[in-house]
C-alpha cells in the first residue's frame, strides 16, 4: 500500500489498470497511443503491440452512432487544446479490428504533469453495444405497440362509425314501420285492430330504443357525444319519468313511489334529455327485475359546491338483487350480470354502461348497493347549475288538426317509404306536397314553383341535400330565403350546426317524429304569418282601416301587376272549386286571395274572401258559395280602377 501512495510500483499499477472493467487508452500530446489496458484490447480487438505508437485517429475512428457519420469534432484533440475534459458521451461508436461496429461510451480527460502541463489524454471507454441494442429493441417495441394501438383505435373508431351507419340503415325501415302504423291508426279501425296496431307500434318503438342505445354508445366511443346545458324544469321531468313507468309498474302489480326532497330546486341547468335517459334506464331496470313489492325513486340535494348543486338520485327496488361478485360487471359494456337473465329479461346490456358514461359526463358518480335476493339500490349523482324558470312552449298537443294556413312543401327524399310517410303526414294536415327523388329533381321543382318550405334529405343519390341546398341558396341570393329543413338519420353531434352553417334552417333526425315534424311546420307557419305582417303596433284609423306602425308603401307597380295577375289565377281556381263544391280547397284559396288582395289594398276583394272563410268556418256553405261567386265581378271592378 505504501508503494501505491508513493507511485513507485509500476507493475502493480499495470495490474490494477488491466483488471478495471472499462477500456483505458492514453495518448501523448501528438495523439500517439502510449497505453491501452486489457479490457481495451478486448473491446477494440487490437493488441497493445499493434497500436502502441500509432496515431489514435488512424486506429480508432469515432462515429456518431445516431447518424453513422464520423465524429469530426475530435474529442482528444479538444482536450489537448483546451485542457478541459470531455464528459461522458453515449452516442459514439467505433469499428473494431474485426470490422464490427461497437457502441461505446467514453470520457476524455487530460493528463497533467506536476507543473500542470498537459502531457496527454486518458480515455476511459465502455462497450455499451448490448445496452444500446436492448434500448433500440425497446424503442422498436414501443413504436410497434404505438402503431398497433393507433391501428386498433382507428379500427374502433371505424367500428363506431360503422355502428352509427348501420343504425341509420336500421332506423330508416323502422321509421317506415312507425309512420305507416301512425297513418293507419288515423283511419277508422275496430278495437281489435287498434289494439294490434298499438302493440306493433310499441314493438317498433322498443326496437328503436335499442338502436338508439347502440347509436348513443357508438357516438360515445367515437367521441362524438356531447352533453347540453339548458334550462329545464326538474319537477316536470321527474313527473314525466314517473308517468312513463307508472303503466308498466301497474301492469306488473308493483308500487311505484317518488320522493323528492323539498330542498331540491325546481329549475336547473343541465341536459334534461340525458338525465331523463338515466332515470328511465334505472327505473325500467328496477321494474324489470322486480316481481313484487315496490320501486322508489328518491331525489335529494347532496351538497352545493361553488353555487352548483350536486343532486343525488336513488332508485330502490325489492327485486332479485345482485351478488357482490356480480356488481363490478354491472356497468361494463354489453353485460348483463347473469347471462341466463338475458333471455328472461331482455335488453342490450348497454343501458347501465351508457348511464355510467352519461353520469360521468355530468360530473357525477353511479354506484349500487345490493344483496342477492334482497333488492337493489342504485345511486347516482349529477352536478347541475341552478336554472331559470322555464317558459313553457305552447303547442305541445299531438292531435292532428287541419292547418289554417296550408303550406306548399317540397319534399326531397330518395327512400320511397319515407316519401310516402312524410307526404301523407303532411297532406293529412292539409299541406300541399311535391316530391323529388334527388337533389337534381328538387332543384328543378324549386325553379318551377314557389315553396314555403323544403324538406331536404341529406343523403340522396345523384345530388345530395347539401349540394342542392347550396345551389338553391346561390339562386336565391340575398333577396329570398326559402326555409330548408335537413332530414337525416345520420345524427351525430355537431351535424345540426354543420347543416345550419350550410344554409339550412332546421334539422330533423329520422325516423320522423310526427310531433316534431308538426311542430316545425307550425313554427314555419307562424313565421310565415309573421312575414305577412310583423306589426309591433296596430290600430284602427278614423275611416275604420287597420293601420300598422312601420307599414311603408313599398309595393312596386311591377309587384302590384303580378299580384293582380296571381289573384286572377286564384279566382279561376276558386270558381272551379265552387263548381266541384270542394270546401277544403275553397278556404285555402280564399285565404290566399285575402292575403294577396290585402297587400294591394283591394279591400272589397279582401273582405269578400274573408267572408267566404268566415262562412265556411261557420259551416254555412251556401253563404260561402254565394259570396264566392260574386268575387269575379268585384275583381273586374277593382282591376279597372287600378292604373298601372
Amino acid at each position, binding site marked *: 500500500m505504501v508503494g501505491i501512495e508513493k507511485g513507485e510500483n509500476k507493475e502493480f499499477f499495470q495490474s490494477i489498470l488491466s483488471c478495471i472493467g472499462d477500456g483505458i487508452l492514453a495518448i501523448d500530446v501528438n495523439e500517439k497511443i502510449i497505453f491501452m489496458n486489457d479490457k481495451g484490447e478486448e473491446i477494440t480487438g487490437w493488441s497493445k503491440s499493434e497500436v502502441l505508437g500509432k496515431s489514435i485517429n488512424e486506429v480508432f475512428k469515432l462515429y456518431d452512432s445516431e447518424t453513422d457519420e464520423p465524429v469530426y469534432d475530435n474529442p482528444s484533440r479538444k482536450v489537448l487544446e483546451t485542457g478541459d475534459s470531455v464528459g461522458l458521451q453515449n452516442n459514439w461508436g467505433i469499428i473494431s479490428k474485426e470490422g464490427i461496429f461497437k457502441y461505446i461510451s467514453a470520457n476524455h480527460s487530460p493528463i497533467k504533469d506536476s507543473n500542470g502541463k498537459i502531457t496527454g489524454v486518458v480515455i476511459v471507454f465502455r462497450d455499451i453495444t448490448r445496452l444500446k441494442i436492448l434500448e433500440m429493441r425497446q424503442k422498436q417495441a414501443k413504436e410497434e405497440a404505438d402503431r398497433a394501438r393507433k391501428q386498433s383505435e382507428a379500427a374502433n373508431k371505424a367500428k363506431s362509425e360503422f355502428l352509427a351507419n348501420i343504425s341509420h340503415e336500421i332506423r330508416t325501415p323502422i321509421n317506415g314501420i312507425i309512420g305507416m302504423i301512425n297513418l293507419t291508426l288515423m283511419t277508422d279501425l275496430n278495437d281489435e285492430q287498434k289494439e294490434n296496431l298499438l302493440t306493433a307500434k310499441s314493438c317498433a318503438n322498443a326496437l328503436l330504443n335499442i338502436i338508439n342505445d347502440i347509436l348513443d354508445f357508438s357516438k360515445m366511443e367515437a367521441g362524438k357525444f356531447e352533453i347540453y346545458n339548458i334550462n329545464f324544469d326538474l319537477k316536470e321531468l321527474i313527473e314525466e319519468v314517473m308517468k312513463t313507468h307508472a303503466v308498466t309498474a301497474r301492469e306488473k302489480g308493483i308500487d311505484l313511489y317518488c320522493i323528492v326532497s323539498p330542498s331540491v330546486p325546481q329549475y336547473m341547468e343541465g341536459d334534461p334529455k340525458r338525465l331523463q335517459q338515466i332515470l328511465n334506464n334505472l327505473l325500467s331496470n328496477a321494474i324489470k327485475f322486480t316481481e313484487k313489492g315496490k320501486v322508489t325513486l328518491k331525489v335529494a340535494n347532496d351538497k352545493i359546491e361553488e353555487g352548483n348543486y350536486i343532486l343525488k338520485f336513488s332508485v330502490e327496488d325489492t327485486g332479485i338483487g345482485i351478488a357482490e361478485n356480480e356488481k363490478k360487471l354491472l356497468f361494463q359494456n354489453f353485460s348483463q350480470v347473469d347471462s341466463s337473465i338475458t333471455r328472461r329479461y331482455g335488453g342490450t346490456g348497454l343501458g347501465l354502461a351508457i348511464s355510467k358514461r352519461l353520469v360521468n359526463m355530468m360530473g357525477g358518480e353511479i354506484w349500487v348497493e345490493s344483496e342477492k335476493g334482497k333488492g337493489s339500490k342504485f345511486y347516482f349523482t349529477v352536478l347541475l347549475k341552478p336554472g331559470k324558470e322555464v317558459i*313553457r312552449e*305552447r303547442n305541445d*298537443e299531438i*292531435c292532428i*288538426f*287541419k292547418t*289554417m294556413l296550408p303550406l306548399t312543401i317540397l319534399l326531397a327524399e330518395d327512400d320511397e317509404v319515407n316519401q310516402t310517410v312524410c307526404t301523407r303526414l303532411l297532406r293529412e294536415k292539409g299541406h300541399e306536397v311535391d316530391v323529388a327523388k334527388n337533389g337534381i329533381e328538387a332543384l328543378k321543382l324549386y325553379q318551377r314553383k314557389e315553396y314555403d318550405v323544403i324538406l331536404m334529405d341529406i343523403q340522396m343519390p345523384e345530388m345530395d341535400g347539401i349540394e342542392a341546398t347550396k345551389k338553391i341558396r346561390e339562386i336565391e341570393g340575398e333577396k329570398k330565403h326559402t326555409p330548408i329543413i335537413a332530414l337525416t338519420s345520420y345524427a351525430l353531434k355537431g351535424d345540426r350546426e354543420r347543416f345550419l352553417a350550410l344554409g339550412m334552417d332546421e334539422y330533423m333526425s329520422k325516423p320522423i317524429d310526427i310531433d316534431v315534424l308538426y311542430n316545425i311546420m307550425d313554427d314555419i307557419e*307562424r313565421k310565415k*304569418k*309573421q312575414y*305577412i*305582417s310583423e*306589426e309591433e*303596433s*296596430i*290600430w*284602427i284609423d*278614423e275611416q*275604420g*282601416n*287597420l293601420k300598422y306602425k312601420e307599414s311603408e308603401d313599398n309595393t312596386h307597380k311591377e309587384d302590384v301587376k303580378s299580384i293582380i295577375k296571381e289573384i286572377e289565377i286564384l279566382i279561376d281556381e276558386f270558381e272551379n272549386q265552387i263548381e266541384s263544391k270542394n270546401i277544403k280547397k275553397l278556404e285555402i284559396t280564399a285565404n290566399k286571395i285575402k292575403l294577396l288582395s290585402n297587400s294591394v289594398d283591394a279591400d272589397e276583394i*279582401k*273582405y269578400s274572401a*274573408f*267572408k267566404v272563410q*268566415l262562412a265556411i*268556418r*261557420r259551416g254555412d256553405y251556401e253563404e260561402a258559395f254565394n259570396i264566392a261567386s260574386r268575387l269575379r265581378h268585384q275583381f273586374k271592378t277593382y282591376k279597372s280602377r287600378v292604373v298601372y
Partner: protein
Amino acid sequence: MRVLIAEDDLASRKFLQKVLSEYGECDIVIDGVEALDAYLLSLKENKPYDLICLDIMLPKVDGVKVLKAIRDFENHKKIPDGKRVKVIMTTALAQTQLVNEAFEIGCEAYAAKPIDTEKLIEVIKKLSLI
C-alpha cells in the same frame, strides 16, 4: 247574439263554437289581424258583434293589442258604453300581467282554459247578452 271567437288553437275554438252556437251566430278567426278585420267588417256591414272571446296569445297580433285597438277606436268614435262590444279574454296560462293589462284597457271578463262551460254561460248572462 253575434259572437266572434278569436282563437288559434283548433281544439279550443271548436269547443267554444260548439258551446256558444246554442246562443247565437259564431264567427271564427285564428289570429289578431283576422280578429280586427272581422270586427271592422261587422261594423261595415252594420252587423256588429255583441261578444268577442279573445285569446291572449294570438299569433301576429296578441289579444291585448287587439283589445286596445278596438277600445281606442270605440273611444275615438265616441261610442257610448252600452253599445261597446263585450270582450271576454281567454288564456291557457295564468298570465296575470297580461290579464291585468287587459282589464286596464277594458275587457269585461277573463276565462282560464280549460274553460268551465257553466261559468262562461253565467258570465255571458251577467253581461245581459243572453
